[in-house]
């Protein structure tokens, strides 16, 4: 059917002839490289954040006053101040005292600390949502507090915690764009550079948005699957 071809060619030609389209095409590899940085940094800081968040969440439930106060102070600070201030503070102020810090490792540390604060609250809430009888049943079997947490409470909290955790993963992925401030060449950073050079807002940020969307959708699909697999009723 010739008219379909003509019509199709028309649209295609129109797209190809657009400068913005060419800008995106030319920079696609560059963007995907940036996405690689974004994923790499997010994944590592998430690992840090989950460990810190677990301890901070447990700490906020601790009977020990000092542990409770430390956890609270940690969560309050890293949740309460703007991320880019934290990035500045640690990158320029604190980390240089500790080691010869480079942007990427600094970014991972700051994002890890930051997400740990949010995850801490998520973990605390998840633990508290598990029925009290579960702890009692575990303790009555002779488990100590730690064993009951590890084998009985946390696995159940884990299920409750998945959806807000996925929310946090996705927020972190996007917050990671802030480390472009300290020269980490991640996705948004590269988008900014290309935009500034070409002023093709729609095409450049459209492409960036699509890449982010693909990554976040992947995360949420994985999250849904984990959630479904853990459902026992």
């Amino acid at each position, binding site marked *: 059917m010739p008219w379909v071809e003509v019509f199709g060619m028309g649209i295609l030609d129109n797209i190809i002839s657009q400068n913005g389209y060419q800008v995106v095409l030319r920079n696609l590899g560059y963007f995907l490289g940036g996405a690689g940085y974004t994923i790499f940094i997010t994944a590592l800081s998430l690992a840090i954040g989950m460990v810190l968040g677990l301890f901070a969440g447990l700490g906020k439930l601790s009977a020990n006053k000092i542990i409770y106060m430390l956890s609270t102070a940690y969560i309050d600070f890293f949740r309460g101040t703007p991320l880019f201030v934290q990035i500045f503070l640690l990158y320029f102020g604190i980390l*240089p005292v500790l080691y010869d810090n480079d942007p990427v490792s600094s970014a991972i540390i700051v994002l890890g600390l930051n997400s740990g604060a949010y995850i801490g609250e998520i973990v605390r809430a998840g633990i508290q949502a598990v029925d009290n009888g579960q702890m009692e049943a575990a303790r009555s079997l002779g488990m100590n507090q730690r064993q009951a947490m590890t084998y009985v409470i946390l696995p159940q909290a884990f299920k409750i915690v998945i959806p807000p955790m996925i929310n946090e993963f996705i927020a972190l992925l996007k917050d990671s764009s802030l480390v472009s*401030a300290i020269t980490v060449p991640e996705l948004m950073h590269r988008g900014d*550079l290309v935009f500034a050079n070409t*002023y093709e807002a729609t095409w450049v940020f459209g492409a960036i948005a699509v890449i982010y969307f693909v990554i976040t959708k992947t995360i949420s699909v994985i999250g849904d699957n984990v959630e479904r697999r853990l459902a026992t009723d």
Partner: protein
Amino acid sequence: TGQKQEQKVLKVGTNATFPPFEMQENNEFTGFDMDLIRAIGEEQGYKVEINHMDFKALIPALGNKKIDAAIAGMSITEERLKSVDFTKAYFNAGLIIAVANNNETIKTTEDLKGKKLAAQNGTIGAAYCDEVKKLDAKTEVRIFDDIGAAFMELEKGGVDAVVNDHPVTAYYLKTTGTSKAKMVGDIFSADDQYGIAIKKGNTETLNMLNEGLDKIKANGKYDEIYKKWF
């Protein structure tokens, strides 16, 4: 000593979102400022290493010695001199007004009074808009973080004019702005002087850069770069 000097490194910070002064093309930093600082480095026996960062991060990076100098189309002002040192001015930008293609009401700086104006944060254009507002309180000033967004606001019709450094606006009109906006009037406010920022009190680097700047102005290198970009 010449060979030894060549191994010295000058760490320079910039924010490569300000064409044609600093930008990135094909993964390379290019633009007037970039060529200039490289020329100074070569003259003074330094290997120039360029880092792109947030505009906000340039000052802390200087303070922390993550970079030795910042070159990013920074205008020299009294207020800023309290926090950092600047080299001698290396560029006199001058401001220009940009309006929508179909705008016939704004022709000169006089016409800006009482209008909706946009400028980029931290530029002399922003300061100029504030001055206009002082003359006529009905003037509305919108300061964008990013000059790209200011131009988009102009295209959207949210503001009547963008007041910005002439070379930057010219570059925008050359790329996507051609069909949507135009420059009106003459270049004005000729005291918009760019300088290279150095940590306060770092006279060693300051002197070195000033010396280099003098040298390339004297040997014609500066004019060569200027011609390449403007």
